[in-house]
């Protein structure tokens, strides 16, 4: 069987608009992960097995794994501060830049970096060591040093086409608490100045504050000023105060990737009332990465070249600019411009048609992942205000907006569904805004339910008693805390693990088993309560003797196998009427009918499916011609 790598992770259809699923990310990123290594970071709470240090490292490892597959042009550096050992270009104390061989300090992540970093804790204390932060009696300012080293790491690349970020992970909201007087004010002043210099170089500093339950990370104490947060921004800055370390990890993960706008667009509300929206891809299928073809002998990269050849004359052509359709032997030609003209229905990117109650949006009104819309006042002032007013009205009246989305590849109707801000335990579960859902046209909807011809009297409907039994099953098998994204994609995890093993040159026998989280909970299913409920439901809809009846049905089917055997025998008999070798030699196989050809195939236990040509070639192969 021909094996199609591109479809490895798709079901059975090709991707209609490849570019829709790929984020258009023009700029690349240089990131320094700056991790506080004070003893308080490494400390484990009684009963809690995970330290803040470990949680931060886990988030970073996960984001590195994502980067290495999907954004291999991004460069990263990992830097600890408040360490015993020092390792950095400026030779500053208390700062340790972590790296592995065959790699610059700021470079693309490699398999080895990820592997060693994910195991760093085992030898961190012996190799790198932890020490207290800023303490009295020394002039040592580790935070200042850390920012300076990070700046040094990010010296390459122009800020025009590279986003430079320093991600600072710490659980200390007041780094200068142990010093006082002139030393303190002096240290604070120089640190703030250093941070400002960094920001003036278009390097952003982002804080990932962590804190213990019951305590609060007070941004005002020091970091608000360092980050340059003011008024509105400060109110938007949610401290990572979470009850559970898991929730905190979730929040870290949310912020570790830069929010990228896929498109800025204008939305026509009415007459000449326009507002400005940014669209974001919050949900998109992750692919196993791009395939690069290699020469298997030299392992060097190949480039593909496409050429167009005239089928009639064999002449090499320039890329043809015309398409045609054969209609009754008459060629109808179209130019590419004409074709794109046909698809251009509207020059307005998005315009409002009206509103409908939310129950008009059916479950099958879906074709591809939705796109998230959030207003922006950058070019059209007042956009946010209008957007929020519509959004609130839609939530109030339970309406969604129907709009026309004039994309150049597939203009279509879209539903704009207002999503209320959902926050639980300080974690934003759903951001406020509107989700754009791409709607099908009638051409895209199939009336499958009506396909089968049924007489109304042959269709049983559930009785209340039966429904009760099904309700009992539902109670037993309730997934209370279900949320999407609780499952990792096992195929993708397996693929990544394989890549990592191969990239490190390890033996594939060491490939770790992937835990398939998508399998049902077999143990839970065997609990007596669950089994009883299921048995009750089964007896109610299938009757008590279902299994026996099924077995009987199975038996008749095996009777069908007997008839299959009979058929095969007839086929052998029928096939014996021809001299197949002669027919094949003289090329007369094509004069036989399909049933005649199938007799031969059936007699020799070969597949009987396919077109006539396929059957003939199968026979020829079998005859060894």
């Amino acid at each position, binding site marked *: 069987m021909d094996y199609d790598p591109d479809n*490895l*992770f798709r079901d059975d259809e090709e991707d209609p608009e490849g570019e829709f699923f790929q984020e258009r990310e023009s700029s690349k990123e240089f990131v320094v992960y700056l991790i506080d290594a004070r003893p308080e970071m490494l400390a484990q709470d009684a009963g809690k097995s995970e330290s803040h240090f470990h949680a931060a490292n886990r988030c970073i490892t996960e984001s590195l794994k994502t980067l290495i597959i999907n954004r291999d042009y991004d460069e990263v550096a990992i830097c600890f501060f408040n360490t015993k050992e020092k390792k950095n270009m400026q030779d500053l104390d208390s700062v340790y830049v972590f790296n592995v061989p065959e790699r610059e300090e700021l*470079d693309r992540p*490699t398999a080895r970096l990820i592997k060693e970093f994910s195991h760093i804790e085992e030898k961190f204390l012996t190799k790198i060591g932890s020490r207290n932060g800023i303490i009295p009696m020394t002039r040592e300012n580790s935070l200042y040093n850390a920012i300076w080293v990070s700046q040094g790491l990010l010296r390459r690349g122009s800020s025009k086409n590279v986003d430079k970020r320093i991600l600072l992970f710490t659980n200390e909201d007041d780094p200068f608490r142990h010093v006082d007087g002139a030393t303190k004010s002096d240290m604070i002043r120089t640190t703030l100045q250093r941070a400002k210099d960094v920001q003036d170089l278009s390097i952003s500093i982002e804080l990932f504050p962590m804190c213990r339950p019951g305590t609060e990370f007070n941004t005002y104490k020091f970091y608000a000023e360092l980050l340059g947060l003011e*008024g509105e921004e400060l109110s938007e800055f949610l401290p990572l105060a979470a009850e559970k370390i898991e929730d905190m990890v979730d929040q870290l993960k949310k912020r570790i990737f830069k*929010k990228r706008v896929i498109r800025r667009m204008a939305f026509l509300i009415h007459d000449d009332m326009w507002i400005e929206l940014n669209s974001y*891809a*919050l949900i998109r299928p992750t692919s196993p990465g*791009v*395939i690069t*073809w*290699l020469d298997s002998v030299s392992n060097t990269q190949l480039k593909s*070249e496409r050429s167009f050849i005239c089928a*009639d004359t064999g002449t090499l*052509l320039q890329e043809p600019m*015309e398409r045609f359709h054969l209609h009754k032997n008459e060629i109808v030609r179209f130019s590419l411009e004409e*074709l794109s003209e046909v*698809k251009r*229905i509207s020059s307005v990117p998005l315009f*409002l048609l009206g*509103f409908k109650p939310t129950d008009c*949006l059916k479950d099958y009104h*879906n*074709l591809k*992942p*939705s796109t998230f819309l*959030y207003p922006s006042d950058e070019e059209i002032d007042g956009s946010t205000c*209008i957007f*929020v*007013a519509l959004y609130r*009205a839609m939530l*109030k009246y339970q309406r969604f907006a129907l709009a026309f989305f004039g994309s150049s590849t597939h203009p279509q*109707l879209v539903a704009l569904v207002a*999503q209320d801000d959902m926050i639980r335990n300080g974690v934003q579960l759903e951001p*406020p805004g509107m*989700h754009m859902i791409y709607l099908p*046209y*009638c*051409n895209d909807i199939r009336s499958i*339910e*009506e*396909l*089968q011809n*049924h*007489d109304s009297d042959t269709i*049983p409907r*559930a009785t209340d008693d039966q*429904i009760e039994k*099904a309700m009992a099953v*539902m109670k037993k*098998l*309730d997934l209370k805390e279900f949320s999407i994204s609780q499952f990792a994609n096992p195929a*993708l995890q397996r693929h990544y693990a394989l*890549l990592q093993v*191969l990239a490190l040159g390890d033996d594939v026998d060491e490939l770790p088993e*992937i835990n398939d989280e*998508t*399998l049902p909970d077999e143990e839970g299913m065997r609990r007596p309560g*669950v089994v009883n409920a299921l048995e009750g*439901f089964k007896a109610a809809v299938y009757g008590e003797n279902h299994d026996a009846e099924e077995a009987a049905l199975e038996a008749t089917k095996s009777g069908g196998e007997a008839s299959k055997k009979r058929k095969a025998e007839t086929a052998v008999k029928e096939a014996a009427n021809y001299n197949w070798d002669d027919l094949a030699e003289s090329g007369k196989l094509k004069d036989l009918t399909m049933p005649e050809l199938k007799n031969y195939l059936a007699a020799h236990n070969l597949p009987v499916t396919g077109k006539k040509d396929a059957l003939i070639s199968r026979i020829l192969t079998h005859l060894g011609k």
Partner: protein
Amino acid sequence: MLQEALVFLLDVSPSMHNLLPDVSKLCHMIIERKFFDNKSDEVAVVLFGTQDTNNELEKEVGGYEHVVVVRAIKVIADDIFEVLSDLPRGTTPGDFLDAIVVGMDLLIKKFGPTNKGKKRLCLVTNAQHPIKEPDEGTKDDQIDALCEQLKAHGMKLECIVARGKFTGVADKRIVNENDYLLSRFSGKGIARTVFVEDRASLLGAIQTRTVSPVTIFRGDLELSNVMKIKVWVYKKSVVERFPTLKKYSDKAPPNSKFSTHEVKVDFEYKSKDNPNNIVPPEQRIRGYRYGPQVVPISSAELEALKFKPEKGIKLLGFTNASNIRRHQYMRDTYVFIPEPGNRKAILAVSTMARAMKNANKVSILRCVWRQGQGNVVVGVLTPNLSSSDNIPDSFYFNILPFAEDVREFHFPSFNKLPLSRQPNEKQQGAADNLVKMLDLVPSGKGEALRPEVTPNPVLEVHDLFTLYYLR
């Protein structure tokens, strides 16, 4: 090979006159689409409500007046456009039952019992004129007899009934009786009746392209090891593509009738260092980027080491419908129907669907459609209760994202925006009004721009465009 035989039964009685341009356009669209996809289809056109009479039944047995067969069943050709562009304005009230009989007669005479399931009658009428009493028995008996015939010959009937503002002055009693008669057809499961109230939905009332759907999966929906339900899974929504056109070669001899004008596209793989070195396909190996490295993996290696789940549909559990949000649906939708003819399966699906609906629950499934498939999908199953006696209950299934597919970004809450960027009371009032005024589902009237009846303008325009070139 015959794909489909289609008979248009078009009402041209006086009350239909203002609608005829749209009817003609609807038929055009269907035929044009067939030009692209099914050139060997055969089409007939029958008009009723005409002044004249011309059909074989009238000659053979009498009756069937004011029904004209303007085009007998034959392969699509240009002449059909002339027929459709120039629909005569009739002068008599149309009897759609007569027309159906004449249409069936055409199909039976041409094909007999062959081509089951590929014969379609498409009736367009406003059904507001009285139907003649039959010579013997009642109208109900007559329709039941017709249904038997339709079923025996594997014919389908689609009725498009213009209502709402299309109805002029009409006798309510007659309209109601006709609606009842039409529903008797659909009650038998061989006919489909669509009521249309505006131009757009008229044009969207018929699938311009007929696809014979294939199952994605047939087998057990496993609630557990002990409880399984036999289901068939189909796609419910699929994007219909723009028809593919071939690349045109202008280098072929222009006037030779042997010229195909086709273009072959060749791909060659060359090594980057040495462009003269063409690498044959068997020497190529797939490489995946992993940071700065490109990791080569042979097909055999990948095949041996990839994730290989077992085929099957397994229930993970039930959850509150509110735990799944609409925007989390990832792709086109599937429909799970109970195995046809299997009463137990029909009942089990119905029970589960109704219980889910009652409790406002959905179920979460893990599906592997085929053996050998390299991935699994996790998705949400929602109940679809049938509103018709002859259609079993079913489920819709939508794929949900995996953890890797979700990018969770934080967006500031609107309530925390400075007041200057939030709407004031007056502005909010205006927005409330807009949402109420621009109502696409006004009470008492149907829903406007319903996806089920809204055709894709690109496909429509494209067809007209083709026609322009053909003329």
